[in-house]
């Protein structure tokens, strides 16, 4: 094995005029990159900007049908332009480690993680199995996974999200490659876990590893990156040292990404640039008609002492929700924040009366709700709407947008009026009627969530239960959806139960915030006061872990 360490003076990654196209369609256009040892370069961009393809083309895995060209491409001081597949295999894992997007599913669920991590060693060294085991234990220790000796026998399904991400990082750095490519390494992780993973990457960087970080979230990137390159439509539109780029963004794209970060932005401020005026006007006219139709009366939903148990393996019953009380008032938003497993989604299902509480009660307008039979609830079901995280799987894949909305309108509108109503709903969520004939798989993530919101509004609800409605979206798309929800609330007087793990989003959207931890509300209060002066230690911990942009220096 040649020692990759002697390249410590030169860059560990150098790419000049890197371009990738799929069947003539250009995805990456002439990108220049350089990463030095101990440095982190972040590529930031919206989805579809070509950032993941860029990362994958750097290890020769841009995918079948990809045409990759580059004037120069050097990994660890060696040119890989025109490398054979065999040479690429030699470089992957040894010269460059790769952490794929989707941390939670990037380890083979059928194999023990010890094997997965040991594979890099098996493929690139002639170490004996005993020595490999020792190195695997070292790698697990270096990523801060305790009980390594137990862990190596476990499969990814037996590990929590943070543990999986650590194991994945361990498999990428088992051979101490001089360069690490990290594609959205903290997406889908809880904030506290995200903070730990960022700390781990920071310590790897301090140890001399060069890191190329890919992300859509400038707040995450700001924690780690020394330099940032903003990618838009396959081109780098701006690049520079982190502080400078955040303080004085020059390119339009950079400014848009910065404005999209919700943390610290007061309720009601727009996160996305204004839409085209015509669309806003037509949406407003559509909205103006809506209140006359439904003659809104104030509707409140009240939860009192909700308790819900779940049975776990071994027959034990654990409380998922334990004594949760709250009130939803017209025109206001209650933000419910908590990490995965805190019971957030169970609260949503209890509020919707999709599951019945073991103790406590949900009341609608002061009347019984959760204690009624489904038949008794049905007349008032239309008062409640729901928007979920995964819009796509909430649609019948065979239906077009018109079918989806028509289905939701069926109880209210005769067949011949449905198309017109569907168009009006689409205007309300700022979509053009051109999507009526489209199937949801062919829509973008943001468009899908808009269709989901339009569907939720079809029955003219007074309350929307939003369960992680923007968690699957890029920050910039998230910004547009949050702005839309805000506008709809003001125009239609809706009450929101807004559930999220993201403190920045919760702070931006909520009037009142409730912090959920292990099924209990540990702290509740007006959003501003709670974020300014958190009292419960858990709230403080969450706040400390939340990624945020540095305070603008002037």
């Amino acid at each position, binding site marked *: 094995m040649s020692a990759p360490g002697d390249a410590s003076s030169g860059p560990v990654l150098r790419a000049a005029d890197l371009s990738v196209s799929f069947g003539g369609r250009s995805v990456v256009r002439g990108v220049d990159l350089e990463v030095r040892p101990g440095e982190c370069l972040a590529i930031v961009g919206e989805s579809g900007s070509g950032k993941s393809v860029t990362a994958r083309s750097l290890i020769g895995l841009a995918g079948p049908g990809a045409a990759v060209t580059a004037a120069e491409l050097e990994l660890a001081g060696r040119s890989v332009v025109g490398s054979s597949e065999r040479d690429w295999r030699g470089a*992957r894992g040894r010269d460059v480690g790769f952490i794929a997007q989707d941390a939670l599913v*990037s380890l083979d*669920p*059928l194999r023990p993680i010890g094997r997965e991590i040991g594979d890099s060693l098996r493929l690139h060294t002639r170490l004996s199995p005993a020595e490999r085991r020792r190195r695997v234990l070292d790698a697990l220790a270096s990523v801060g996974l305790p009980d390594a000796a137990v862990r190596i026998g476990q499969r990814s*399904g037996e590990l929590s999200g943070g543990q999986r991400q650590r194991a994945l990082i361990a498999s990428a750095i088992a051979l101490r490659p001089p360069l690490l490519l990290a594609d959205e390494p903290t997406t889908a992780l809880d904030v506290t876990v995200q903070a730990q993973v960022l700390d781990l990457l920071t310590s790897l960087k301090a140890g001399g590893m060069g890191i190329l970080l890919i992300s859509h979230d400038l707040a995450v990137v700001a924690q780690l990156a020394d330099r940032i390159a903003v990618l838009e439509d396959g081109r780098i539109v701006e690049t520079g040292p982190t502080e400078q780029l955040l303080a004085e963004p020059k390119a339009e794209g950079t400014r848009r990404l910065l404005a999209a970060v919700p943390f610290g932005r007061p309720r009601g401020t727009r996160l996305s640039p204004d839409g085209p005026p015509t669309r806003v006007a037509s949406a407003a006219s559509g909205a103006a008609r809506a209140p006359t139709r439904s003659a809104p009366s104030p509707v409140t939903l009240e939860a009192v002492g909700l308790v819900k148990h779940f049975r776990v393996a071994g027959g034990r019953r654990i409380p998922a929700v334990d004594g949760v009380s709250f009130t939803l008032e017209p025109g206001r938003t209650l933000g419910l924040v908590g990490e995965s497993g805190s019971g957030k989604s169970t609260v949503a299902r209890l509020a919707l009366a999709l599951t019945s509480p073991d103790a406590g009660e949900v009341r609608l307008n002061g009347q019984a709700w959760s204690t009624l039979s489904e038949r008794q609830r049905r007349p008032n079901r239309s008062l409640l709407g729901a928007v979920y995280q995964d819009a796509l799987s909430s649609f019948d894949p065979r239906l077009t947008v018109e079918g989806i909305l028509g289905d939701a309108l069926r109880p209210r509108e005769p067949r011949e009026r449905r198309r017109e109503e569907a168009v009006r709903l689409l205007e309300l969520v700022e979509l053009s009627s051109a999507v009526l004939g489209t199937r949801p798989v062919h829509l973008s993530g943001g468009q899908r969530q808009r269709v989901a919101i339009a569907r939720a509004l079809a029955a003219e609800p007074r309350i929307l239960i939003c369960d992680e409605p923007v968690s699957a979206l890029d920050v910039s798309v998230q910004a547009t959806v949050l702005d839309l929800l805000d506008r709809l609330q003001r125009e239609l007087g809706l009450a929101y139960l807004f559930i999220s793990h993201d403190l920045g989003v919760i702070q931006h959207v909520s009037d009142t915030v409730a912090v959920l931890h292990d099924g209990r509300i540990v702290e509740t209060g007006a959003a501003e006061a709670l974020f300014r002066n958190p009292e419960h230690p858990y709230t403080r911990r969450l706040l400390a872990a939340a990624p945020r942009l540095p305070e603008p220096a002037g």
Partner: protein
Amino acid sequence: MTPGSPRAEPPAAGRAGRLALRALARIGGGVLVLWAVATLTFFALRLIPGDPAQALLGGPGSQASEEALAAVRAEYGLDQPLLAQYLRQLGRLATGDFGSSYALRTEVAPLLLSQLGGTLLLAVLALAAGWVLALLLASWSTRGGRVGERIGSALEVVGAGLPHFWLATVLILVFSVGLGWLPPISTPGPLGLVLPVVTLAVPLAGFLGQVMRESLLDALEAPFALSARARGESEGGVRRRHALRHAALPGVALSGWAFGYLISGAVVVETIFARPGLGRTLLNAVTERDVPVVVGVVLLVALAYILVTVVTDIAARILDPRVPA
């Protein structure tokens, strides 16, 4: 709801224990199924018009005397109330006594046991051959790009649709009559097994290949496969170490069903190739209205089917740790 980190360490012994419990529960359920099968066959056969004593003495055409019929009824307990007959039969079956064949005048249990081996051998070999064929087809067709996939998918659909009697006839015409390589009937020895096994294995491989190819393709596209490639794993390594195991999962789950499919196929195949076995015994017994033999075969097949599904159920859980024990 899964609490974040505390669920990390389910003790391995606990899982093995739960698997054992599960196997016991499944076997308990299997006993219930056997009881239901015995009950159903008992009453179903009594519903068939005709006098069992008459059948015993040579069928409806026989000119048996009233005395002879009465004697037979007394001998076989047919003169007792139906419920008593049912209970007596259950008691006998529970002790492994299947009665004696009307036609062959021999004990059913030893008769069936002597036939069981041949059929089991045929079924197990066909299952193995079906697996190998399906895996080969799936691996090959996923390597050949879109064209390979189309060809693979076409072969699977055609294979799965082939009826046993037709395939057997064609195989005999080509390899026995035409080329003369293999015997047209199942002679003792390995050569005689080839055509029967192939007849059963090809349609099975068509079914298994369809599901295996799907999951093989999914696994090759999965994020963990990208991780493996990014570690420097070769395409072959990704297949061997990762994708094939994922492809095998639905195959294992289907093997319980496949076994039942093979046993019913054995009825046809054993008859065409004149091969001794349970299938041919069953066919003969049905045509001769040999009730004890029919009941015996049905119960034995049900028992085998239950055992195989328990085994595949447990095997699937050992292979895939994600499935709760």
